[in-house]
């Protein structure tokens, strides 16, 4: 641990020194600054994020993301909706990993009601959760290529994500917005044939990961573009509340799937949390690649051990959640996603604070973009991985 930490420090020191020397050269040259407005409509922002950057030549002096182009006011909307309606709504926060959005909210409501889903429901939830992680992050891996100029990976990602979406659609009825999770369990059981199909798809996904690794991660150009770019040290990452792969890439061994007790099936199987000491863009991307692989393994193990039984606990037909407050967060594809639910014993929540991963992840952008070059803005944004719906909510 200590050796890697000192390694980390050396890397950071070298990085900072390089930035400082560049800055000094620019002071000597006395060039005039320019403001570049990246977005809101820009191919690199997958969504409508706008980044205002003061440039000196091609070097960023100051950058500030400006979000809100996709603000939908979910926290306000949840206040006028009942619990089942909120589930349908929060599907749309991180639209690439929708099922994973439902789980923490449902868990929070279940916590307030003091009930727990039956084991079979927990296992199926975990399977679908990991499937949505795979669907989400595999698209990230493809998109990463596009951001760096390689057009092919994104098509491979879309090709193989399709299989996962088909699985999710087959089980839940919705490709993007499953709305399958219910307080007390699941809407329905899995359709016949799901397990065998999933096994085949998981093999395909592992193959996809190998392809991406060969095509992109092993590529020397890719490595030279991402290594040492956008280094985020551990304590800065924690201060800004980075989570998920972004945090683990900075060397923090923390995965909410492992490190908290949730009524889910993760603790019943054998899997591994990946971390990387570097904290640069490459580390973040690499962690995500490994996590997709790990997720396919998790799903495989879960398929082996689904217990039989009901998928719905005994809950009243009209759900009223008792008064109280609950916080539940899970390790979503983008990072920690949590809901702080305040209930007043009514049909719907009194207030829901949605703590989405991307909001925190992207709030570090002004810090991390200082001193980088314009092409690195794109690399860093891509590696931080955000989804606009998840920032603006």
């Amino acid at each position, binding site marked *: 641990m200590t050796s890697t930490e000192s390694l980390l420090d050396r890397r950071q020191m070298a990085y900072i020194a390089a930035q400082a020397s560049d800055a000094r050269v620019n002071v000597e040259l006395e060039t005039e600054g320019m403001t570049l407005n990246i977005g809101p409509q820009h191919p690199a922002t997958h969504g409508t994020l706008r980044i205002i950057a003061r440039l000196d030549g091609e070097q960023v002096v100051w950058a500030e993301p400006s979000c809100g182009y996709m603000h939908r006011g979910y926290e306000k909307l949840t206040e006028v909706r009942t619990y089942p309606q909120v589930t349908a*709504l929060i599907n749309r926060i991180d639209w690439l990993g929708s099922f994973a959005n439902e789980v923490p909210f449902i868990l929070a409501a279940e916590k307030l009601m003091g009930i727990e889903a039956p084991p079979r429901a927990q296992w199926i939830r975990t399977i679908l959760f990991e499937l949505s992680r795979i669907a989400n992050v595999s698209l990230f891996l493809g998109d990463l290529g596009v951001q760096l100029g390689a057009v092919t990976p994104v098509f491979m990602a879309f090709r193989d994500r399709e299989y996962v979406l088909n699985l999710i659609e*087959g089980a839940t*009825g919705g490709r993007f917005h499953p709305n399958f999770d219910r307080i007390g369990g699941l809407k329905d059981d899995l359709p016949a044939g799901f397990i065998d199909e999933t096994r085949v798809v998981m093999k395909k996904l592992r193959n996809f990961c190998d392809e991406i690794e060969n095509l992109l991660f092993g590529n020397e150009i890719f490595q030279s573009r991402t290594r040492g770019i956008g280094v985020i040290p551990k304590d800065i990452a924690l201060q800004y509340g980075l989570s998920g792969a972004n945090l683990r890439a900075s060397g923090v061994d923390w995965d909410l799937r492992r490190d908290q007790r949730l009524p889910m099936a993760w603790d019943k199987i054998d899997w591994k949390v990946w971390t990387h000491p570097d904290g640069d863009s490459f580390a973040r991307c690499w962690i995500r690649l490994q996590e997709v692989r790990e997720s396919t393994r998790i799903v495989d193990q879960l398929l082996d051990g689904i217990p*039989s039984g009901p998928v719905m606990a005994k809950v009243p037909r009209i759900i009223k959640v008792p008064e109280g407050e609950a916080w539940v967060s899970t390790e979503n594809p983008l990072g920690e996603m949590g809901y702080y639910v305040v209930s007043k014993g009514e049909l719907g929540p009194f207030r829901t604070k949605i703590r989405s991963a991307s909001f925190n992840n992207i709030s570090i952008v002004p810090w991390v973009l200082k001193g980088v070059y314009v092409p690195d803005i794109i690399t860093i944004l891509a590696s931080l991985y955000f989804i606009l719906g998840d920032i603006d909510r």
Partner: protein
Amino acid sequence: MPKLPGLVKGLGVTLNTLVRTTTKGSNTVQYPHEKETPPIRARGVIALREDNCTSCMLCARSCPDWCIYIEGHKELAPPRRAGGKPRQVNKLDRFDIDYALCMYCGICVEVCPFDALFWSPEYEYSEPHIADLLHDKAKLGEWMETVPEAPALEAGAEKKGKK
């Protein structure tokens, strides 16, 4: 094994895909000419079995988007048993779903206590005019033909699937 440079490996991946696509065919579906069958549970369009609807308003009230419009009136129906009193039943006058607003959450289908609403995987009903996306009860009734049987459940499931 000597390590191949990543640049060469990358070229190998694309060439491999090229060969696979030319020999084994592509992964895309030429949509208007060939169509994929959506899964049985796919939430394509909502079908209405009018006979079952009692205009109880549950679906309209639980719709998060407020996109279901129901109007109905009460009328007298002939008694069920001979010599009984005439029954008072709800007659459905209007049942509209505005698919321009609908977000396909399926809550209405779930809450319906009388099995009047069903999901159909049919998806080809886009319209050039947004107003045409308001399906009235006749059109919703037509979708009933496309509603499939509920799928069999995976091993270990306890109850039979409802719909």
